[in-house]
């Protein structure tokens, strides 16, 4: 079976990468089910077990346990995944318990990212439930000695349709054991018209624990004899440790010091004393002088750029340019942005000589398990990663270096160890959203129709740049993504940040579109609609316009109205906003944001709305204030005093609309509603004062500078 061994899975993924489409030749352990699934769902589904027992277990008490490698970081799948299972298994959702992100108990999973939990893993979960229900029906037919066709399922029981008193509970059939039986063919999934649990705003399961302080995060794990570790960090990326004098620190009572080359850790039974110990180490570092800082970074990045990949193209750019009566050429920039979850990375590791158990704040428990086993020379079976609640992640808890640090120390000291990063460490080791550059050259003919869209994005990535407007001659080229670039480009690590690349691409596209609309005197909404054929995009724009009460007018109108739209994780999303710009100071107040999205089937409407509100609020930050400042590999922003994230007083009125589209399978929910926040505010600022702010974040200084060019 494909998922049965690490090697096979890796080979498998590698081959997929090489062949680029999924034709596998000479693959010797062939799993029909996994193959069929992969055909439907792509490579991420390939490593997930096909045996439904991996996803669920029914106890003798008729309670069902759902097992998933996904984790709960606030996005709410702890609540919505059981809805999917309950729906197809015909049980009450309250009878479902859930175990998440435990590598010893849960089916393998690539990780919680990309808004994939419902739209992707959800399919496997539903299929597991459908098969389990089919098998339960067969078992019940045997036990009740009636034909299976006479049975119907409800609320955890199989009933005789004609004599409802003749029934048997799932628990009586399984008694908590793995079910050995399987179906030859998978029955169909329920059709949306029959949904009972899907589509309901079931309250969050984690609510009571989270409002009483009982919810456990990785840093809340306590083990007998546990030590808290603080690790010596360089003052800048690229700095080399020349010497470290630990003599003073050693005087502190009960302090333990681990020195292995340039890895120096101090441990104590109290974290604050460990911290004090760390500060007593006298160090000398050799630092790099690169001259690269947050102002020179764009020139540095453009000096030598990665080879382009083409995301989409049609027609011929030269023809498009010839047909154009007006050409607009602009360059857009965005700075590095931090994830800054409220919970910094934390992990606890406990090694009993045979098994290493690690509680870690991570989005990728299985990858962390493999990494730890690999780096510490342990077999994969002897490492278990358990994922307590995550205090936010947003793409930033994938690398999970802290888990390895805790594991390494626990193994060498043979004591439980907690590594909990300080806020400064959290900023320092963050895998930032990359600084990026977008160059757009676009053209309009004399009738105001777009003829040309020549789009080049550097370093952000592909997501969200594919063309969805009707433009006869266009090309979208991606020069380097957030993933897969080797050294020399960025001064520190970069990685996925909520809807990676899409925020950058949507910002640049929407501001450019409004600059074009302005040239023709067209209303920005009308300008988009006349270039659209995609019905889903048209309907989200219209829904947003209706909610916002958008009255057509040419921009800049002085009203301060902005517009943006795009596609992310299969979801279509449109934004409208109203801002006020203080011309004197350049500061921008966002008064109102309307967001409409079509995400297909909605599993938990209130949960989906919560995610949209969260996206909109978080998105105010990268639009207006968030950027990481640095110099020669040293970070200048190491806490919230200088790195400013949205607070209560920033709050606009937020209105969300979720379109009904029950015939489309569930699409992404955790990320789409953030992609347009740069664009909708940029176009609103332009509409208010006629200033095109070509760099994110749109700080007061940048708004003032743009105003001077009006």
């Amino acid at each position: 079976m494909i998922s049965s061994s690490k090697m096979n899975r890796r080979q498998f993924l590698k081959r997929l990468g090489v062949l680029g489409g999924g034709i596998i030749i000479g693959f010797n352990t062939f799993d029909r089910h996994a193959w069929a699934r992969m055909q439907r769902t792509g490579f991420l589904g390939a490593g997930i077990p096909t045996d439904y027992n991996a996803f669920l277990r029914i106890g003798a008490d008729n309670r069902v346990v759902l097992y998933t490698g996904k984790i709960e970081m606030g996005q709410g799948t702890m609540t919505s995944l059981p809805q999917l299972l309950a729906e197809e298994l015909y049980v009450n959702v309250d009878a479902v318990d859930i175990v998440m992100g435990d590598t010893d108990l849960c089916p393998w999973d690539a990780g919680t990212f990309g808004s994939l939990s419902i739209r992707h893993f959800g399919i496997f979960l539903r299929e597991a439930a459908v098969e389990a229900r089919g098998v339960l029906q067969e078992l019940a037919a045997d036990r009740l000695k009636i034909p299976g066709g006479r049975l119907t399922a409800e609320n955890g029981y199989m009933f005789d349709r004609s004599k409802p008193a003749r029934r048997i509970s799932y628990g009586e059939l399984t008694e908590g054991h793995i079910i050995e039986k399987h179906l030859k063919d998978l029955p169909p999934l329920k059709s949306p018209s029959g949904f009972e649990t899907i589509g309901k705003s079931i309250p969050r399961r984690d609510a009571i624990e989270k409002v009483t302080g009982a919810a456990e995060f990785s840093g809340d794990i306590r083990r007998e004899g546990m030590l808290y570790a603080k690790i010596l960090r360089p003052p800048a990326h690229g700095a080399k440790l020349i010497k470290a004098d630990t003599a003073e620190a050693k005087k502190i009572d009960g302090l333990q010091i681990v020195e292995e080359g340039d890895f120096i850790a101090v441990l104590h039974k109290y974290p604050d004393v460990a911290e004090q110990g760390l500060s007593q180490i006298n160090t000398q570092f050799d630092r790099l002088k690169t001259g690269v800082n947050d102002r020179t970074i764009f020139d540095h990045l453009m000096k030598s750029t990665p080879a382009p990949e083409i995301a989409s193209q049609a027609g011929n750019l030269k023809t498009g340019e010839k047909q154009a009566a007006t050409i607009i050429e602009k360059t857009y920039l965005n700075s590095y942005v931090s994830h800054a979850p409220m919970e910094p990375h934390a992990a606890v590791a406990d090694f009993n000589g045979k098994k290493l158990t690690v509680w870690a704040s991570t989005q990728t428990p299985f990858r962390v398990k493999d990494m730890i086993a690999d780096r510490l020379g342990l077999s994969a079976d002897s490492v278990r990663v358990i994922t307590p609640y995550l205090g936010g992640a947003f793409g930033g808890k994938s690398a999970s270096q802290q888990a390895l640090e805790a594991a390494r120390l626990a193994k060498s000291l043979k004591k439980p160890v907690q590594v909990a990063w300080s806020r400064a460490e959290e900023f320092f080791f963050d895998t930032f959203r990359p600084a990026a550059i977008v160059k757009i050259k676009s053209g309009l003919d004399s009738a105001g129709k777009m003829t040309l869209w020549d789009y080049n994005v550097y370093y952000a990535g592909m997501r969200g740049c594919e063309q969805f407007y009707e433009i006869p001659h266009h090309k979208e080229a991606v020069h380097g993504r957030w993933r897969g670039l080797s050294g020399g480009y960025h001064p520190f690590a970069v990685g996925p940040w909520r809807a990676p690349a899409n925020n950058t691409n949507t910002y640049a596209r929407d501001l450019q579109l409004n600059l074009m609309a302005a040239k023709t005197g067209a209303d920005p909404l009308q300008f988009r609609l006349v270039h659209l054929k995609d019905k889903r995009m048209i309907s989200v724009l219209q829904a947003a316009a209706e909610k916002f009460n958008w009255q057509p007018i040419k921009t800049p109108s002085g009203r301060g109205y902005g517009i943006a739209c795009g596609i992310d994780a299969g979801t279509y999303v449109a934004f409208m906003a109203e801002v006020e710009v203080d011309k004197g100071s350049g500061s921008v107040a966002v008064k109102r944001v309307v967001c409409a999205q079509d995400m297909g089937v909605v599993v938990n409407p209130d949960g989906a709305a919560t995610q949209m509100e969260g996206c909109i609020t978080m998105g105010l930050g990268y639009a207006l204030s968030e950027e990481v400042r640095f110099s020669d590999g040293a970070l200048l922003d190491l806490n919230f005093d200088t790195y400013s994230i949205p607070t209560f007083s920033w709050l606009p009125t937020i209105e969300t609309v979720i379109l009904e589209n029950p015939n489309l399978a569930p699409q992404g929910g955790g990320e789409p509603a953030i992609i347009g926040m740069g664009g909708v505010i940029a176009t609103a600022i332009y509409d208010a004062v006629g200033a095109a702010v070509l760099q994110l974040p749109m700080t007061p200084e940048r708004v003032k500078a743009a105003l001077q060019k009006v």
Partner: protein
Amino acid sequence: MLETIRFKVNSRPVRLEVDGGRTLLWVLRTDLGITGPKYGCGEGLCGACTVLADNEAVLSCQKTIKEVDGSEITTIEGLAQNGKLHPLQEAFIEHAGFQCGYCTPGMIIRAYSLLMENLNLSREDIIDGMDENLCRCGAHTRIVTAIETASRRMKGGVK
């Protein structure tokens, strides 16, 4: 230097032989195993560590244990009485005034201190009073609504 510090935590008397310069946050979380108050920034900038000291909201990462000698400390764990949730906790559940939940203990404690002072806060007052507590998930609008709901009920006599 070890000192004897006596205070109450969630109505329970505590006596510690401890270096008086240690921070309240870490003494609560480590020595006393009370993990509701969270570390978020360590510099009094985020509010995740907020607790009540004699009914006043304080940032426990900025207080030494000596400073709270003789005080009555209440953490999120001490808000529910006899198994009954406080109206704020109820309202946070009802409006889903949280996502990841990491900032929630500090949010609820801060809101509690605001409502202790004044049950007639406007939405603007609430926003103003909560502004130094950070939330990264963007649960802000729901948090404000939850506080409004709780305030209304508490005015009506609900405890």
